[in-house]
C-alpha cells in the first residue's frame, strides 16, 4: 500500500513534476514579494531569458538526437564579436548575413565531425569550445568590441525595441520556438531526430540517414546560436570576448530541466521553454526575495538533480537506484 502510493506519487511528479515545481515556485515567490507577478517584471524576466532560450532551442535538437553541444557559449561569443565588428565595416545589412554564414560554417564543421565521422560529441564540442574561443580572440585581438555610432543605426532594433508593446527578443524567441517546435513535432525530419536518438542501430537499419540528421541538428543549433549572438550584440551594442562563457552549461541545465534525456530520444521544445522560464524566474525570484545573486547557482544545482532523479525514478518504479 505504502509502496504503491509512493510509486504513484513518483510517477505523477515525474510526468508533471517540472510544471508542479514551476507553479510552487511561482506561488512561493508571489507570497514573498508582491512585485514578482507584476507584468513588467514578468516581461523583464522573459526578455532576459530570451537569449539563453534561443540557444536552448537548438541544443534541444542536438540532445534529442543523442549528442551534446558544449560549444554553444563559445560560439555565441564568436557571433556577437563578429557581428559587432562587421557592423562598423560593412554596415548592419551585410554584417548580419555574413555572421550567420560564418556561425553556420562552424556548426557544419561540428556536424561533419560528429555526424559523418562519428566522433564523440562531448570531446568534439569540448575541443571546439576551446578552438572557437581562440578564433574569437584572434578576430578581436583580445579587445572589447563596440559599435562606434550607437545612435545612428537601426541595429539596436533586435535587442532593444518593442513591437505591439512586446520586446522584440521575446517575439523572436516565441517565433523560433513555435517554428522549431513544429519542425520537431510535426515533420518527418522531427521524427527522424527522435529515431536516431532513441535507437541508433534501429534507425540505421530502417534506412534513416543518421549522419545527415545529426549534421542538420548541429546546423539548427548553430543557427540558434547566431540568433542569440545577434540579440546579445544588439542589446548591448558592445561586448567582451567572453560574453557567452559558461552559457553552454546553463543552456544544458535548461534542456535537462525540461526533461530531455542526455541519452537521446526524449524531450520537446515546449518542455525546454518551460525549463528556460524556470531558470529565469528562479533567478529573478531569489533576487526579489533579497538573496544574493549566486544563490541561484546552488538552487539550480539542487533542482537539476531532483528533476532528473524523479524522472528516472518514475521510469524504473523505484526511488533509489538499483546500483549495489
Amino acid at each position, binding site marked *: 500500500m505504502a509502496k504503491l502510493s509512493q510509486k504513484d506519487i513518483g510517477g505523477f511528479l515525474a510526468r508533471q513534476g517540472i510544471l508542479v515545481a514551476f507553479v510552487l515556485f511561482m506561488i512561493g515567490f508571489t507570497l514573498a514579494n508582491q512585485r514578482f507577478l507584476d507584468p513588467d517584471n514578468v516581461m523583464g524576466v522573459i526578455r532576459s531569458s530570451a537569449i539563453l532560450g534561443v540557444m536552448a532551442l537548438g541544443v534541444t535538437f542536438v540532445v534529442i538526437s543523442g549528442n551534446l553541444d558544449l560549444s554553444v557559449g563559445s560560439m555565441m561569443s564568436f557571433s556577437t564579436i563578429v557581428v559587432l565588428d562587421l557592423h562598423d565595416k560593412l554596415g548592419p545589412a551585410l554584417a548580419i548575413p555574413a555572421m550567420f554564414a560564418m556561425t553556420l560554417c562552424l556548426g557544419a564543421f561540428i556536424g561533419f*565531425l560528429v555526424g559523418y*565521422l*562519428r*566522433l*564523440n560529441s*562531448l*570531446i*568534439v564540442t*569540448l*575541443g*571546439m*569550445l*576551446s*578552438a*572557437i*574561443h*581562440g*578564433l*574569437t*580572440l*584572434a578576430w578581436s585581438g*583580445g579587445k572589447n568590441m563596440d559599435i562606434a555610432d550607437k545612435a545612428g543605426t537601426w541595429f539596436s532594433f533586435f535587442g532593444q525595441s518593442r513591437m505591439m508593446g512586446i520586446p522584440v527578443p521575446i517575439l523572436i524567441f516565441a517565433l523560433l520556438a513555435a517554428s522549431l517546435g513544429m519542425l520537431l513535432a510535426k515533420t518527418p525530419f522531427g521524427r527522424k531526430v527522435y529515431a536516431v536518438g532513441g535507437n*541508433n*542501430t534501429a534507425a*540505421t537499419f530502417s534506412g534513416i540517414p543518421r549522419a545527415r540528421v545529426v549534421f542538420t541538428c548541429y546546423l539548427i543549433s548553430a543557427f540558434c546560436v547566431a540568433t542569440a549572438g545577434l540579440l546579445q550584440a544588439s542589446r548591448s551594442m558592445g561586448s567582451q570576448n567572453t560574453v557567452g562563457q*559558461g552559457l553552454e*552549461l*546553463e543552456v*544544458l*541545465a535548461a534542456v*535537462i530541466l525540461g526533461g530531455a534525456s*542526455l*541519452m537521446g530520444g526524449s524531450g520537446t521544445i515546449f518542455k525546454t521553454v518551460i525549463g528556460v522560464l524556470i531558470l529565469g524566474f528562479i533567478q529573478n525570484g531569489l533576487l526579489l526575495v533579497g538573496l*544574493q*545573486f*549566486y*544563490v*541561484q*547557482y*546552488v538552487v*539550480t*544545482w*539542487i533542482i*537539476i*538533480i531532483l528533476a*532528473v*532523479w524523479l524522472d*528516472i*525514478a518514475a521510469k*524504473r518504479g523505484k526511488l*533509489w*537506484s*538499483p*546500483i*549495489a
Partner: protein
Amino acid sequence: MAPGTLSTFLKRGAIWGFIVLELIFFTVAGHLLAVGEKTFMDLDNLLLLFKQSAPIGIIAMGMTIVMVNGNIDLSVGATYALSAVVLLDAMTWPIFGGLGDWVIPVACLLALLTGLFLGAINGIIVWKTGVDAFIVTLGAMLGYRGLVFMYNGEQPTSHLNWTLVDFAEAQFLGLHTATWFLLLVTVAMWFLMNRTVHGRNAYAIGDNREAAVNAGIKVGPHMMINFMIIGFLAALSAVVFYAESGSVNPNDGSLYELWVITAVVLGGTKLAGGSGSIIGTFGGVLAIQLLRKGLSHIGADTSTVNLVIGLILIAVLLLDRQLNVKGKGELKT
C-alpha cells in the same frame, strides 16, 4: 609480429611520440621565430615545465580513475576553487589564532577534507539516485561555484603565509615542491590502479557494468570512492598551487575541467570507460603543458593556444578511431 601489435604499439606510444615531435618542432621553430631566448628546453625550463604541470596533472590523475570507472567529473574546477578559499581563509580564523605556524597543517587538512566531502556528495548522488555522473557533476559545477561566490562575493580571498610560501617554493633534489606532489600522486595512483583490488574493479566496472555486478563487485562504493579521490586530488592541487600564490579569485579554476579532460583523453583514456592508464595521462599532461609553453615561446598568443589545443583534441579523437580495430564498435556509435 602478431597482427595488431603495430597498432597497439602506436596507440601506447602515440603520446610520447607526440611529445618528442613537439620538442623537435619548438626547438627548430624557436631558432627561427623566438623573439628573446632561442633555446626552447634546457634544464631550468624543464623543471619549470614539471612545476607548471602540477595543478592540472594532479587533478588529471583523479580524472583518469573516474573515467576508467565509466564516469566523468565536471565539477573539479569548482572544487579546486572552494578548497583554495577554505585553505586561505582558514588561516585567518580567530579560533586558530593561538596556533602560530601550526595553522598551516590544520588549514591544509580542512581544505583537503573540503575536497573529499564535495567528491563524496557527487559520489553518493551518483550511487544512490542513479543519475548520470555527467548531469550530477554538471549541476555540482554550478552549485559549488555558487558556494565559492557566496563565501566572499566577487572579492578575491587572500592570505600570504610566508612559511607556507617558502615550503611551496623550496626545491628538494632539484625538483620543486609542486613537482614532488605531482610525482607522488602519479606513483600512488599508478599503484592504486594496477596493484590493488579497487583499481582492478574500477576497470571491470567501466568495461562492463552488468558483468561486474554479476561477478559480485559492489559497483556503488567503488564509484563513490573514486569521486572522493578526485575531490581530494582537486583540493590537493589547490593546496599546492595556492600555498605559493596566496590569493584566489572566485572564478579561478573555471576551465580546469576542460584542460584536465583534454589531458586525460590525449593520454588515451576512453570516455566509455574500461581503458586508460596513469602513465598515458602523465604523458597527456606533459604534452599539453609543452604545447602551451612552446606556443608562447615562438610568440603565439592565447588565441592560437586555444585554437591549437581544441583542434589537437579533435585530431587525437580522429586518429584514435582510425587506429582502433575496424568493425568492432562500428554500429554501436
